[in-house]
């Protein structure tokens, strides 16, 4: 017996809000990036769950979307971490509330 579709969706919603809380509540830019990755993964779980429980799983659309989403998430993580390293080199900090040069 399989779990219901709504169980997967609730897990995905929990994961998304955990990532969201971390992304807006932590000071370290690296943890913010991990939170964004968690939110992306929650969306991917939704795609796979709807693909599996949908009427036409042979179309493979959910699987394809998640594959491209993982690709883009990898590119995003690489650029984001490079930006964090570059900022650290210049400002000697990765705390997001220390980076307020553009604040009026």
């Amino acid at each position, binding site marked *: *017996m*399989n*779990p219901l*579709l*709504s169980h997967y*969706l609730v*897990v995905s919603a*929990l*994961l*998304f*809000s*955990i990532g*969201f*809380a*971390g992304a*807006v*509540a*932590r*000071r*370290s830019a*690296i*943890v913010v990036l*991990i939170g964004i*990755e*968690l939110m992306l*993964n929650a969306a*991917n*779980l939704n795609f*796979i*769950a709807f*693909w*599996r429980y949908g009427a036409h*799983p*042979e179309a*493979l659309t*959910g*699987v*394809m979307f*998640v*594959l*491209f989403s*993982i*690709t883009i*998430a*990898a*590119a*995003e*993580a*690489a*650029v984001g*971490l*490079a930006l964090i*390293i*570059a900022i*650290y080199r210049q400002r*000697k*900090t*990765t*705390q997001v*509330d220390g980076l307020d040069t553009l604040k009026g």
Partner: protein
Amino acid sequence: MLNEIAFYLIAAVTLACAVAAMALRQLVHCALCAAAAFAGLAMLYLQLDAEFVGFAQLLVYVGAIAILIVFAVLLTRADEIIPGSRQSSPSSLMGIAAALLVLSGIALPVLSSPSLHRLPVTTAAAPVKLIGVELMTRYVLPLEMAGILLTAALLGAVVIAMREEPETKLDPRPPAPRRAETGEVVSLP
């Protein structure tokens, strides 16, 4: 029944690891817990009969992104753990409240809609051969675009993270011999 128990176990471990990744103080612990959460998600994909996506998730997230995060922690490690310093931003309570609002905004409609409380109607399979054929025929243009995007992103990441060495190209003088600067006596045979 067994499937359900496995689902609840995997989901509980994944969510616990995600909470730990967001709440722990040491950044290395955060990175490792995030890797464990990504692995748990890969298990959920495997349980949903998406084998290729599950293994791609393991390779890309646990294999590559977690290592990348650990390297970033390693390279930016001077000021993180000052005893007594706060790890959360000043408005963190607002942030957590906003996250709870988001959770209720997603989870309440899901729980209250009867059409989502259902079992899978058909058996599903995503064989690797079919995925490969689809990638080469119907999705070939997105595939090529993903290749271009990855190339550009990795080149950009290298350029952004590269250590700048100022005034090496602007300085017209030839570099002075180092031994003459330090006054070291060079004994010729």
